[in-house]
C-alpha cells in the first residue's frame, strides 16, 4: 500500500505511540483487503461504547490513548441513558464504568453523542460519494444506501484509528466495483411502515453479505429504508443495498440487472409477525426506536399515545440531540407514562435483561433481543406495540 511521507513518519512513531498504533491498524487492514492508499474521511462514528460489550479491557485500551480526533466523530449507543440511568434500573457499578468509557472517548475530542443515527446530527450531514468511517451496522447501511456516501463497516478500534488519523484504507465499499448490486430482490406485494423491517429481517437471512437491488411495488419513505437496512444488517451482513427508482446511487448509475433473483411474497412478511404472536398481551415491555427515532417518528408516536396511559414499561429510544430539538413532543410522549431514553437502546443496554418479553416494531431489535438480552421478542406494527401497552383497566 502506498503511503505518503507524512504517513510513513506517523508509522515510524514520530508523532507518538497513539498515532503510530492507529496508522498500524489502518495499514494492516488496508493490506488485508488490498487497499492502494489511505483516503481522507469526512466523519467517523465509533462502536465499542457499551460497558456491556467492551468491558474493562476496552476501557483500559481507550484510556491509554492520547491525542485528538482529526474529523467530527461521535459514538455508538451506550449501555444506559447517561443522565437517567437510575430510572432504567441500571446498577451504579455499571454506571460508573460506563461514564469512565464516555470520559475516555471525550478526552480524545469525540463528541459525547451516543447514537446509531449520526446522520440526523448537525455537522454529520453527508452527500453522494463522500467517504466516511462509520461502525454501527444500520448507520453504515443508511449512509451507503440511502445517502450514497461510502463506508465499510468499521470495527470500534479501526473507526477510532480512522478518526485519529482522519483517513481510512481505500478498499471495499469505497470502490465503485464493490457497490454494484449482485442480486435482485423482487417484492410482490404492497408494504408499509414496519413491513420494511420484516422484509429486511427475511432478506438479510437469505442473502448474507450480497448487495441487493430491490424492486418494490410501494414507495418507501426514508424512515422505511432505515428499518429495512437495519434489519438486513442484523439478520445478514448487508452493508449496502439499492432500491430501483429510489436510492441515489441507483438513479445515477443505472446498474445492470443482476443475474440472480429472489422473490418475496406477502406470506413471508406476515410470517415474521405471526412467528411470536403467541406472546400477544403477554409482553412486559414495549421498546421503540431501533434505530434511534427521528423527530418525525417521535411525532408519530406522540400522536398515537395522545390521551392514552401505558401500563407496561415503555421505552422510546432516540439521540439526545434529536430529543433536545423535539420541543414538546417528548413531554407529550412522557405524559402517557412512556419513557424517552437517550444515548442507549434496548439492544445494547443490560436493563433489557430485567424483562421477560419485549414487543418491538424493528427487524433489527427482533433479531438481536433473544440472543443479546436473553429474553423473548415479539414483532408487531407500531399501532400493535402501543396497544400491547394500552390501558385495559
Amino acid at each position, binding site marked *: 500500500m502506498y503511503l505518503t511521507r507524512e504517513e510513513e513518519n506517523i508509522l515510524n512513531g514520530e508523532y507518538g505511540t497513539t498515532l503510530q*498504533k492507529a496508522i*498500524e*491498524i489502518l495499514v*494492516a*487492514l488496508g*493490506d*488485508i483487503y488490498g487497499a492502494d492508499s489511505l483516503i481522507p474521511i469526512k466523519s467517523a462514528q465509533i*462502536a*465499542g461504547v457499551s460497558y456491556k*460489550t*467492551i*468491558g*474493562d*479491557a*476496552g476501557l*483500559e*485500551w481507550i484510556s491509554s490513548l492520547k491525542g485528538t480526533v482529526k474529523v467530527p466523530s461521535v459514538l455508538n449507543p451506550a449501555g444506559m441513558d447517561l443522565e437517567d440511568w437510575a430510572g432504567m434500573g441500571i446498577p451504579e457499578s455499571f454506571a460508573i464504568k460506563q461514564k469512565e468509557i464516555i470520559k475516555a472517548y471525550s478526552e480524545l475530542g469525540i463528541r459525547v453523542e451516543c447514537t446509531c443515527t449520526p446522520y440526523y446530527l448537525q455537522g454529520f450531514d453527508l452527500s453522494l460519494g463522500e467517504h466516511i468511517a462509520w461502525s454501527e451496522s444500520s448507520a453504515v447501511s443508511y449512509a451507503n444506501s440511502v445517502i450514497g456516501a461510502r463506508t465499510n463497516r468499521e*470495527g*470500534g*478500534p*479501526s473507526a477510532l484509528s480512522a478518526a485519529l488519523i482522519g483517513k481510512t484504507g481505500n478498499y471495499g465499499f469505497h470502490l465503485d466495483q464493490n457497490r454494484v448490486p449482485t442480486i435482485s430482490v423482487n417484492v410482490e406485494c404492497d408494504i408499509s411502515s414496519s413491513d420494511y423491517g420484516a422484509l429486511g429481517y427475511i432478506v438479510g437471512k437469505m442473502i448474507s453479505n450480497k448487495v441487493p437491488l430491490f424492486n418494490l411495488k410501494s414507495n418507501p419513505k426514508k424512515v422505511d429504508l432505515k428499518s429495512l437496512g437495519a434489519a438486513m444488517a442484523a439478520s445478514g451482513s448487508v452493508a449496502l443495498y439499492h432500491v430501483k427508482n429510489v436510492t441515489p446511487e441507483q438513479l445515477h448509475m443505472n446498474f445492470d440487472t443482476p443475474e440472480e433473483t429472489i422473490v418475496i411474497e406477502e406470506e413471508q412478511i406476515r410470517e415474521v409477525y405471526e412467528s411470536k404472536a403467541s406472546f400477544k398481551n403477554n409482553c412486559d415491555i414495549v421498546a421503540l426506536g431501533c434505530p434511534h427515532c427521528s423527530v418525525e417518528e417521535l411525532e408519530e408516536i406522540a400522536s398515537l399515545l395522545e390521551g392514552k396511559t401505558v401500563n407496561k414499561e415503555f421505552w422510546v429510544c432516540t439521540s439526545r440531540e434529536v430529543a433536545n430539538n423535539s420541543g414538546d413532543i417528548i413531554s407529550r410522549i412522557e405524559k402517557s407514562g412512556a419513557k424517552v431514553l437517550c444515548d442507549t437502546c434496548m439492544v445494547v443496554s443490560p436493563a433489557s435483561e430485567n424483562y421477560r418479553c419485549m414487543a418491538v416494531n424493528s427487524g433489527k431489535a427482533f433479531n438481536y433481543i433473544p440472543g443479546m438480552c436473553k429474553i423473548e421478542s415479539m414483532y408487531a406494527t407500531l399501532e400493535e406495540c402501543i396497544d400491547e401497552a394500552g390501558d385495559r383497566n
Partner: protein
Amino acid sequence: MLPLKNVLMRQVIEIRIECRSISKGEGKGPVLSTKDPISFLGTVDPETGNIIDPNHELHGKCIKDSILIFPYGKGSTVGSYVLYQLKKNGCAPSGMINIDSEPIVAVGAIISDIPLVDRPNVDIFKVIVEGDEVIVNGSEGYLEITGSK
C-alpha cells in the same frame, strides 16, 4: 555442486519461512497449532489463557507464551479486546501465525503488541508441528524454526 546447493536451499527454507507482516515485534515460544478458527470472545479465558470452549480442538490447552498457529479469527469483534486483556494479564501468546488474518485478530494483535504474521509461503500445518520452537518476526514478516522436540 547442484545436489549440495539443493540441500542447503532446503535447509534454509526449513528454518526461515517468509510471511506477510501484520503486527510488529518479535516473539519466541513453543508452537500450539490448530486448523480450527478461533473466536477469542468465548473460546479463551482472558484471566488464564486457557481454551475453555469444549467444542474447540485446543480445549484444555493454554495459549500463554506460545506461538499460536490458527487459520483465522472469527466471531465477535470484541475478540480484539480479549487479546488486549490477555496481554495485560500476562497470558497472551508470544506470537501468532495465521493463514489469512482478518480484522478481529489483526486489530487485537496490534493494540496488544503481539507479533502477528500471515500467509506463510509454505504449508504451515505440515512444516511446523506442536513442540517446535519458533520465532515470529512481525516487523519484517518471517518466522524461524529454532528447535524441535
